[in-house]
């Protein structure tokens, strides 16, 4: 772990100022990702800006139009067990509870979860080349060990995935990310928050210099799914493992017919993967295996496996079909009973 200065910020402005002043400075919230990476010497911030005392980043509140605002500092556990979240956005609660462990969720914050970095083996080992960690050094995962890597939206420079479960739920719900920077506040639609690697894999998201996430806003229109949702996560052991593939889906149903659908995939790309075509294809369709398969194929169109992860293409397809089935039936996947309903 490198030497760094420690700056405890008491206001958003203070944090933004400190961050804008030093491109090598980093925000620290729950620390569960940043401290982890600092011990591996992957992250070497010059200054840590401790935002955990900033009151304005805390709390969950109603928005005027009936949505829900979640402060960047709200711990994952608090969000998952919040009654408003559990009743209106149960998909989000489920996605959070599918991730990490009770201990980690207690420390992990909403803003930190959004900004956690990839679990690519090479990214985490400074003895190996990695474009994301050291631009221009090469991508070791291509032609190397790539079981946990992307099948969609990857580039010749990086095939890493975004590891978050929560973000897959947020992507499906179409949340907004509120950020504040030196130029004030702006709102980034969730789909635009994370980016594809293209030729700059060192950039995970579209935050600009000096910007911090202040809150996530869940839209009112994503609160109408009732029991018709599911978060289905497939992994190498039954708990405490990152997703090989995960699916977040929420449907509005009229009888046996789907009127609208939201689907996002995790573990398959540099960002939660969502495609309008797949969702449109389900609107007005009967909730049956055939419709689900059509949607899955559209969502996975162009998916490309590598040596060790080619299985994910078919696995993801089947997971989408099953999750849609669970959502349509109103039997969301439990995160404690590991049998897949």
């Amino acid at each position: 772990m490198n030497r760094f200065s420690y700056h405890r910020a008491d206001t958003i402005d203070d944090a933004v100022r400190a961050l804008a002043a030093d491109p090598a400075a980093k925000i620290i919230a729950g620390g569960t990702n940043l401290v982890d990476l600092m011990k591996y010497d992957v992250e070497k911030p010059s200054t840590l800006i401790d935002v955990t005392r900033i009151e304005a980043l805390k709390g969950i509140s109603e928005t005027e139009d009936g949505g829900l605002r979640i402060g960047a500092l709200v711990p994952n556990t608090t969000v998952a067990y919040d009654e408003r979240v559990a009743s209106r956005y149960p998909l989000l609660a489920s996605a959070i509870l599918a991730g990490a462990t009770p201990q980690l969720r207690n420390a992990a914050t909403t803003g930190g979860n959004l900004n956690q970095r990839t679990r690519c083996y090479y990214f985490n080992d400074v003895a190996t080349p990695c474009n994301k960690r050291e631009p221009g050094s090469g991508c070791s995962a291509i032609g190397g060990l790539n079981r946990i890597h992307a099948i969609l939206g990857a580039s010749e420079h990086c095939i890493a995935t975004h590891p978050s479960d929560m973000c897959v739920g947020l992507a499906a719900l179409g949340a907004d990310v509120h950020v504040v920077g030196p130029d004030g506040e702006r709102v980034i639609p969730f789909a635009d928050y994370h980016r594809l690697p293209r030729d700059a894999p060192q950039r995970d998201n579209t935050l600009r210099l000096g910007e911090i996430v202040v809150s996530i806003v869940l839209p009112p229109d994503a609160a109408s799914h009732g029991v018709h949702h599911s978060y289905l996560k497939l992994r190498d052991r039954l708990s405490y493992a990152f997703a090989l593939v995960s699916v977040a889906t929420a449907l509005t149903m009229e009888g046996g017919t789907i009127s609208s659908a939201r689907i996002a995939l995790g573990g398959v790309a540099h960002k939660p993967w969502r495609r309008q075509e797949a969702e449109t294809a389900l609107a007005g369709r009967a909730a049956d295996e055939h419709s689900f398969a059509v949607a899955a194929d559209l969502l996975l169109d162009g998916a490309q496996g590598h040596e060790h992860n080619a299985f994910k293409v078919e696995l993801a397809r089947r997971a989408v079909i099953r999750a849609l089935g669970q959502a349509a039936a109103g039997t969301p996947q439990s995160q404690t009973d590991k049998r897949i309903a």
Partner: protein
Amino acid sequence: MSVHRDLPARAIVGTQTVTIAIALNGERRSLKVSPATTLLDLLRHDLALTGTKKGCDHGQCGACTVIIDGQRINSCLQLAVMQDGKAITTIEGLSPDGALHPLQAAFIERDAFQCGYCTPGQICSGVALIAEGRATSREEIREHMSGNICRCGAYPNIVDAIEDVLVQRGQLMKETVE
């Protein structure tokens, strides 16, 4: 427990040591820490509270679990400097007057450990689980205890021990096997 903060809210302190005040196992402590020191290393190296274990130092095993302001947390990923004003309970704080916490006793009764290295983390985690009140079946205990790896494989006995205490407290009806 609330503790007086003697560090100004806003401070750029560089890489020198910082003084923090915490309530550790019910006792107020004022401590000098370097920003790069984790809570786990502070406990183990500086305070000789070696009951809290280091199994991975990266949030991957749960051996370092302590209870901070009522929440179970991996102390290896917490910077000590950020704990200012917090109340921290470690395994050493669970039986302050020498009498075992019911979960400690249940761990012995159910043989819920072998080498004992994961045990303090398991117990702190279990104590928090009981307080959280969310686990109401063996299945849920298993999931809610999955943040604590036990390489000796004492899992079924760990679940038994926690189940016993939940049953004692009326939080759970004993499941009959089969």
